[in-house]
Structures are given as C-alpha cells and as structure tokens.
C-alpha cells in the first residue's frame, strides 16, 4: 500500500501526544483550513468525494451542505460508538492518533459553522477515552480548541461523552437521544439531524474515520484526494479484518482493490487446511458473500452490486468448519439483544428469528420453517424505524438464501439426534404445531 493517509505514522511512538503529532506536521491542516472560508473548506470536502466511513457511505460534503445557513446553534457530533461487530478501526485511530481526530473535528466544524462539538465514544473504550481526554486537554491548552482558535474568528468546544454500551447508540439519532441524556432510541426521520439533531439544532454527525480523513483532504486538496480509489468510492479506507484469517488487524487500503487482496495478501487468508465458507464485507450486519465473491473490488458500489455492502469496512471471514446455523444464531442473538424495542418488526422479528434458529438447532424444526424464517426477514427489511432490524435480517436472509442446503441438513441431523436423546414430542402437539406453521 503506497498511499497511507490515516495510518501514515500510526506506529510512531508517542503519536498520541501533541509534541510528536505536531512534529509530524500535525495541526498544519487546521492552520490552513482556518485561513480559508467555511465554504472553501466545504468545497474541498465536496471535491474529495469522501463518503462516510461509519456504514451508510453518505457523501460527507453533501451532508455538511445540508446544514441550514444562518446564525443558530449548530452542532458537530463525532460518532465514536463503533459498535458494529467486527469493527475496530476507530479504536486504533483514537488510541494511537487522537489529535488527528481532534484536528478533523475542528476543521469540519469550521466548514459546517458549528461551534459546539461532541465525541460520543462507546463505554467499553475506556483506554481510548482516557487518551482522548488527555489529547483534548493538550489541544485546549495549545489553543486548537475553545474560543477564537489560533486567533481566528472560529470557536469550537469539544466534549467527550462516554456511552453506556448499547449498539443502538451507534445509530445517529439514537446517539443524539443518548447524548441528550435520554434513553437511546432512534428517532423518526425526517427530520434528519442536519435540520433537527442534537437539542433540535442542525447537527453534523460523522464517524471517527471520516473526520480523521478531513485533515488529509485539506492538506492535499479535495481533487487530489479524489484521485485515490475509484470513481464513486474515493480515497483510502481502514479495513478491520477478523475471523478465520492468519493476520487479523486493521489495514488501510485504497478503495477498489480486489477483496481477495485484502483477505489473502494482507490478512494472510484462512489458516492452512481450511477454506473460506463465507465472509461479511462490512460488519456483521452486511449480507454474507461467499468464496465466489472474492474478486469483487472492495468499494461501495461494487459491494452493493454483489448484493452486500461496504458498511463500516469490517471484513469477518468464516471458514468452512463453522456451522452456518451457529453463525446465524450468533448474529441473530446479538441483534435481538441490542434491539431497542421501539418498533414492531425489529423487536418481534429479531426475537422470533432467534427462537426459530434455536428450534432448528434443537431438532424441533422442519425445512418448512426456513420459508417462514426467510419471509420474516423479508418483512423486517425496509419496514423498521431504523436500520437495526435490517442489520439482522439482511445477513440472516443471505445465509438462508446461500446456504439453504446446509440449513436443511442441519435440521434433519438435529431432528435425528433429538429423537435419539429426547423424549418424543406427543403427537397431538406436533400436529398442532404443524397446523399453526
């Protein structure tokens, strides 16, 4: 990888301190950005084509431009909840290079006209939060934060807020509610946060990685940045590779490289003797892909075309020794546990799916149950208040579609072993159950 932007100096000892960061050219982008007008910075962001790195992949420049003009309280919120299973890129960024994030936030706040900003960090990231706190104190001391930054008109306060460990608080509106001190439930959209976000004010919400990319864009220019990657997926991306690979970890890649390159060349592929059964290209909420899809370029549009999504850029590799039912159950249980319960399809659908998968595993299901389960996933997708329901339904649905044979085998095998080990189910109950099914 030639063009590393975010991980350029990532292994430099002491990069988390202001002195080392400045010695490596830190806060130069901020100085440059503050000499520009907000609209000039915004123009650079729009030219860069930078898409959000949190999961939805919405163009950041466009998001900033949606904020209403005028003097009102505007907010910038950095989503550092990083709760998608398999994702750990923001953790490394914040732990090793906190000032990059701070610099990115101040520049983005300048572009958005926001003078109050927040980092909502997940509660489990205690170490990273401590490091960020220390970095914030340093940045504040050095005048990179607060009133009249570096003697300019731009002011920006930055508050670090620790979450309490709910997946749903990584959803932007759930995050806002949580930040306001309420129960973290997603809000109805519209209104979108750009219009009515935190405390009903216009709010820009971006992921840690997105905001950390901003200094590089200011430094190299938006157009130059756009030359990286492919047409609609510009720049570099941090990829968290985990699961059955020999060298799991975070890698910075240029968007558009073949997925095989990431999984095999960078992460070393599955351990010897095992093959890839399936892989999640963008966290556990993305539909699974199989070994046949390894040559799909790793960028937003190619992934969408392949029937999945880039998501947060977390590749989870599953080898052929893993039973698909077990994988599905694990995923479904996570989302059932994390469903906030506000909307019906997600609350009941995740619960029902888990119960059905458990039934399959305990030998109390028939292949007909697979049809029910598939249709339940269809009924969840697109019908929920936020995307949490989809986050379970999409991978589960894709697993049933792609590994139906294995599900059926599992059902038959589990039934056979249940009949050997368990007392037989009374006939009348079974008849009732089948009628109901």
């Amino acid at each position, binding site marked *: 990888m030639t063009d590393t932007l975010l991980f350029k100096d990532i292994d430099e000892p002491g990069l988390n301190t202001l002195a080392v960061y400045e010695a490596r050219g830190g806060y130069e982008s901020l100085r440059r950005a503050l000499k520009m007008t907000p609209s000039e910075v915004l123009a650079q962001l729009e030219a860069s084509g930078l898409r959000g790195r949190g999961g939805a992949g919405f163009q950041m420049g466009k998001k900033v431009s949606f904020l209403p003009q005028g003097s009102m309280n505007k907010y910038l919120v950095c989503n550092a909840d990083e709760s998608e299973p398999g994702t750990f890129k923001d953790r490394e960024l914040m732990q090793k290079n906190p000032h990059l994030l701070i610099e990115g936030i101040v520049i983005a706040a300048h572009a958005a006209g926001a003078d109050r900003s927040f980092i909502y960090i997940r509660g489990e990231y205690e170490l990273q939060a401590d490091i960020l706190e220390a970095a914030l104190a340093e940045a504040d001391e050095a005048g990179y934060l607060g009133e009249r930054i570096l003697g300019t008109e731009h002011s920006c306060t930055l508050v670090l807020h620790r979450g309490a460990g709910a997946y749903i608080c990584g959803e932007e509106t759930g995050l806002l509610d949580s930040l306001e001190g309420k129960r973290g439930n997603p809000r109805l959209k519209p209104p979108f946060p750009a219009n009515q976000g935190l405390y009903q004010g216009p709010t820009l919400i971006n992921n840690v990685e997105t905001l950390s990319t901003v200094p590089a864009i200011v430094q190299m220019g938006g157009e130059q940045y756009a030359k990286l990657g492919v047409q609609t997926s510009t720049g570099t991306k941090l990829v968290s590779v985990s699961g059955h690979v020999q060298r799991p970890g975070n890698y910075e890649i240029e968007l558009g490289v073949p997925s095989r390159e990431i999984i095999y060349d960078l992460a070393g592929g599955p351990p010897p003797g095992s093959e890839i059964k399936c892989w999640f290209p963008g966290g556990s909420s993305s539909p699974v892909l199989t070994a046949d899809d390894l040559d799909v370029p790793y960028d937003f549009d190619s992934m969408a075309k392949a029937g999945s999504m880039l998501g947060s850029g977390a590749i989870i590799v599953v080898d052929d020794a893993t039973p698909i039912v077990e994988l599905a159950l694990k995923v479904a249980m996570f989302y059932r546990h994390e*469903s906030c*319960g*506000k*909307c019906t399809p997600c*609350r009941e659908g995740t619960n*029902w799916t888990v119960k*059905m998968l458990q039934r399959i595993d305990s030998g109390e299901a028939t292949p007909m149950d697979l049809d029910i389960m598939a249709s339940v996933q269809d*009924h969840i997708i*697109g*019908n929920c208040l936020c995307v949490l329901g989809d986050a379970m339904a999409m991978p589960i649905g894709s697993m049933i579609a792609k590994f139906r044979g294995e599900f059926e085998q599992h059902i038959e095998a589990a039934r056979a072993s249940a009949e050997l080990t368990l007392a037989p189910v009374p006939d009348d109950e079974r008849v009732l159950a089948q009628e109901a099914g």
Partner: protein
Amino acid sequence: MPRPEPRTITFTIDGREVQAPENAMLVDAAKHGDVEIPVFCYEPKLGNPVGACRMCLVEIEGIGKLQTGCSTPVKDGMVVHTQSDRVKEAQRSVVEFLLINHPLDCPVCDKGGECPLQDISFGWGGGISRFIEPKRHFVKPLELSPTIAIDRERCILCYRCVRFSQEVAEDYQLVLLERGAHSFVSTFDGHPYIAPFSGNIIELCPVGALTSRSYRFRARPWDIEDAGSVCTLCPAQCNVQLTVRDERVMRVLSRENDEVDDGWLCDHGRFAYPALARGEQSGPAEPVAPIEVLHVDPAAERNGDEEATPDSEDTSQPSIAAPAVANGDANSVHLGMRISEPLLRDGGELRPVSWERALDEAAVLLKRAGNATAALAGSGATNEEGFLLSRLLSETLGSAHVDSRANGALPSELHRELADPRLQAKVSDLEFAHGVLLLDCDPVIDAPILDLRLRKGVRRHAMKLERVAGGDLDELRETAMRLSEAGEELVIVWGERFASGAAGAERARALLDLAAELSLADTAGAGLLEIPATSNGRGLREAGVLPNCGPGLSDAEADGLDARAIAAALTAGELSALYLLEVDPLSANDPFAASADGDHDAWAGALERASGVVAHATLLSPGLAEHANVIFPAGSYAEKEGTVTHPDGRLQRVRRAVAEAGATRPGWRVIAELSLRLGSDLDVYTDKEASQQLFDAVPFYSGLTLEEIGGRGVRWQEREDVAVAVGGGDSERKGEATTAAESAVDDSYTQSRPGAQTPPSSEAHSGADRDTHAADTQTEGEDSTGGDPSQSGGERT
C-alpha cells in the same frame, strides 16, 4: 401566536383524487377520501408522531421504501397506495409481529369488542399465526395504580401511555424499562402511578393492557350504551361519554371537544362515577378483585375503587372526598350515601317521606318566611335550575336574596364589563397565546383539564406562563406587562376568589383597567378567562342567580343580600329561611363554606338560627344532616337534563344518561311544584320549557335552541346577533375599548330581548357612571329597575 391555517391540496390515494389540508399526516388526509390507514401508536393528541408500531406503512410513488402514513405529511400531487400487495403484506406482517407475544385472550379481556388490536387484526391481519414458540410471560395483572391494572402480556409497546405521561401530563412517571422484546411499561421507580390525569392512559391504550380497575369485568361492549353529556364536577365542564349498563353508569370516557377539553379527562371526573350511580347501588362499590401490587404501599391499594386519586381533590362536590368522616362527625356516617327520596326533619331526625309531604312542608316553611327567604345555588345546579330558583325567590316569594357567588357581591356593571364578549378568552386561546397569567387560580385544582392545555401551550408553542396570587395589584400589573412583552396575545386566567371579599370590586376594576391598558378586548386570541368557584358559576350568574342582577346580568329589581350578608342576616334573625340548591355551606369542600370570610361558625350559626332550611342535594353532607328541614333528592349530572355555561361562555347540554336514583325528581320540576304550592305558576312543565324560558329571559341566549347547542356547545359570544351588536360598538382606541364593548353588550341585553318595551338602560349606564363605586351602583340599579324585571314578568305570564 398564529393558528395553523392549512391550505387545501389534492393528492391521489388508491387511484382517487382527494382533497385534504396540506401537511396533514397521510393517515388523517386519507380519511378525507374515506380510506382508513390502520394505526396503533399514532395519536395526534400526544404530540409529534413516533412511527413506532409501523402499522401504517403505505406506498408513496417516488419513494423506494414503504413510509409510515402517520409521519408523512401529505403534499400536493402525492400518489399514495394503501391497497397494493406490497402494502398489504407489510401491514399483515406487522399484525403478525404484534400478535406474536400477545396472549389473544380476547374472550376474557375487557377490551374485547372495543379493541383496536382486535379490529385491525380482523381488518388487516393474515388470520393465522405462524408463530409456534412459547410467548413472553409476565406476572399479571399488576396494580399500576389504585385505579389502573396493567397486563404486560397484552401490551404491544405502542408508547402511547408513556408519551402521555412524558409529554402531555408531564408527570414523567411512566417509562419503558428493559430493551427489545423484553421491554415493558412501568413507573420509573416501581411506585404506583399517582397523577391527576392518570386515567387517560386507559383510554389511550389500543389493547387491553391498561384497564380501569373499577370497570374490570363489569360489562362487555355489547352490554352497554353510550351517553354523551358534560361533567359538572368542576368548572372545566369536560365533555364526557358515560358508559351505561342496566341504568347504571359503569364508566366515564372522554368525549372529544377540542374547544373544551382536548379529549382528556381528569381522574376525578373519570373515577368519581360511583357517586353518580343510582341510589340503591351507590353505597360502597362491589369489591374489586385484589390483584398483585406493583409497589409497596398497601394502604393506597383500595383508594381508587370509590374515590378519585388523592391528587385530584374536588373543590366543588362536597360529598365525594370525605373530610367530615375523618373529623368523626356523628352525622357524617351517611356521607357518601346518595339521597334518593325526600327527607324531612321530624322530631329532630331526618326521615324519608313522600314527595307530597316534603313539598307541602317546604311550602309551609317558605310561606312563613316569605321575603325573608334567601337562596344559594351551587355546584351541580344547571342554568335552568338556577334561573327557576331566582324566579321562585323574586316572583313567588318577593325576595332578592339569591346568590351563586360565595364571597361577596360585585356591582352589577362590573359583572357586565367582565362578561364583555370581546374580552372573553376561550379555552383554545390558552394554547396559542403568547403569554398566560394565572391570577389567583390553580388550574390543576380549580379546573384540572386546563392544566393540560397550559402545558401544551408551553411545550408546543413556547407560551410564557406566570402566576400571581394574593391580590397584589402592583405585582399583577408588573407581571402582565412583563408577559405582554412576549407578544400581544395575553390571556389572564383568574379565579373567582380574586374578585371576592371586601376588596373584590376594587380588584375586578383593576383587572378591567389592566385589560384595557393591554387592549385585550381588541386583540384576537387575548382576553380574560374567569374560573368560577362553582362548576356552573358563570351559567348561574347569567341566569340571574345574583343578588343585584337579573337574567342576563341585567340590573335587578332590587338589590338583595349576597351570600356573606345572607349568613349575617340569618344569624341576626333578619332572614328566616334558607333555600340551598346543591350547596352546603358547612361542607369543607363547598366554596360557600368560606363565604363568611372563612368563618365556619358564621354559617353554622346562620343555619342554626334559620327557621327553615330547604335543600336540594345528591348526598347527605354534614350541614344538611344537621340543619336541613327538608331535603329534596337531586340528580347527579348523569341524571339531569339542562344546560350549563362553561367559563368561556360556551353553553353546553347536560344530558340524562340514567334514570334518576330512587324517587329523585328533576330540580326544575321540584322548584316549579313548590312555586305552585306557594301560589305562583312558573309555567314550566318539561325540561325543554325550562330551557326555553331561560333562553328567552337572557338576552344574549335569545334565539338559542337545544339543537343548536348540540353536542359541542355554543359560545354565546360567537353567536351572530351578539356579534352584530358588538360590531356596532367597534372601537379601535384603547381607552374606549371597554366602554364601547360594554355599551354594545348593554344594547344586546335590551335590543334582543323579546317584548322589550321600555328604552334600553344603556343611558343609565353611560361611560361616566362606570367608574363609580358600589354605593352609586345601587342607586343606578334602583333607577333602572322599572324596566327589566317588569318586562320579563310580563312576558312570562
């Protein structure tokens, strides 16, 4: 504050073009085309939609995903499908999801038959369930509060009750605990949900999860009849729908009328209905099956069965709260018992007697006292009853000592000025005003439902709210001025007690001056709103139950004594008989109890000295038990037919829902029969005649019909002939505002009065005289007596 003025747009729904107000939510807009989109969580009264239940998913052309109809504002040219296969499947799936954990125990569920979940399952559901796994279980039912049982298994987590608690009543007690499929509704700390408006959540619940403990298992929807009426337990006069089974009121529900109550009820109005029941059943209610308690306080457990929750104490119905019982009053053992036959004091004891005997005895007492009779009318009395009472006193007995205000009279012209139609704020103004000043009143006690309206104004329209109490006129002025900076639409809500007592007239004048200074009369959406001390205080006054005013606040023939003076005169022996129309001045909760400057003994002495006390009462309260000679059973509001007048001037009909308890007769009929026995025919033989007489006698009610009042009521200030009369006196200049408006009212009194023969009294009421003191007023009143009463007398006979 600007009221919403929606533009009408055209959109297409299911292939038909439909006109609807722009930006109405699709669910509402669809109704304009007779299309029903099913909803559970959507309830506009609760504020912004939350889109939680997903039942209302519809397809909108140009938008990929299905959208929730409850949260999508309709736009011109929008094309909506509610019957496409995609929509049907989505709606069917939501019903299926909702029923996964629902116990489907409809045959034993109170909600069965009137249950949105049931209806929607039939209408939009798939008819079968594919769910064969075990359902979620909770201990049930639990006592959410003394009045409400919660069944968490039936709950579909629609958030309505929680939103009500958080965003309407703002008591912040109900929350959803846990997460996902384990979520359940509870109070935050597990303590009972005790709040003044808690009962509304029962009605909001779209399933049988929240049920009324006193209604549980008492009736099924096919056993009951609905009867619309108006609750007269407090001045708020909320519109209600009584659930009647076998001539018994089983339940009180709200009957939506945005201009009165916004569709809410207070717990008192909702749960006090056992007191409305027929006599034989009005004792202690049948025991409610005990259920498991959510909380730790067993003492509170049984409260709600017969009484309102402690927070919603009644100020007007002495008999429901039971302070006298707590006092250990020997006579109060009957308290809480309905009187269902005439009672006569015989040998020191009250004994049931026949109507003939009771009427005869009352007639003897009153005849003996003659014009030394005084009368008070209070809480439950309708306009007609008040009107006939004042006729009984003035025409039959020749006494002017009749009062419906507890504490001192105001000069008659002050009454008129305060009733200036242009100065009257209406309830919905409380929501949209820039500022509201609460003057000597506490809405949550005096007229509870207004509390919710004020909260709505503050929450949704950033209305400013201030309170002033204690009659500090400087503070009043200062606060009003400060509030008026927020905007010109200022409403002053004032309690009757502000203009009561010795300083009453001076304060009322100050209030009027302040209103003139702020041009409240000339500002749309601004004005004064008085909360009377008794439920129908405004109506009784307008019907002429005042010592110095006849019907329509006209000057009385002769000034009588006000309530305070009546007490004094009775004690001094100058008056001998007292007629109490639903008043007991010795009952602690009766506004009249404070009428002798808070001196309980003054009324005790007065009743002691009175040679005859005749009363109409629903319940045997301590003063009556000890002092009344004759008690006529009075109907509760569920048994009455007549009109009442809301504090903002809205005439509303009280409709009979059940037959009178026992031998109870309508109040108007009792008064008419009594008058006949005293030698004067009031010429009233039906309740409609009583209403007609009232409408004919009060100039600004003139021409009204019961049909026009209907189920929603009519504000007399908004009626056409009054508007015309006011239009004549239109004045832009601040200083003249009051004067002009007042003379307009004066004109309307006389011009619209049928059979008016003498010239209008507006000359006597010229602007110069208006600032005079009470003494002058009396003279003025005497001057103008020649006209008014003689006219009305002539017209009646």
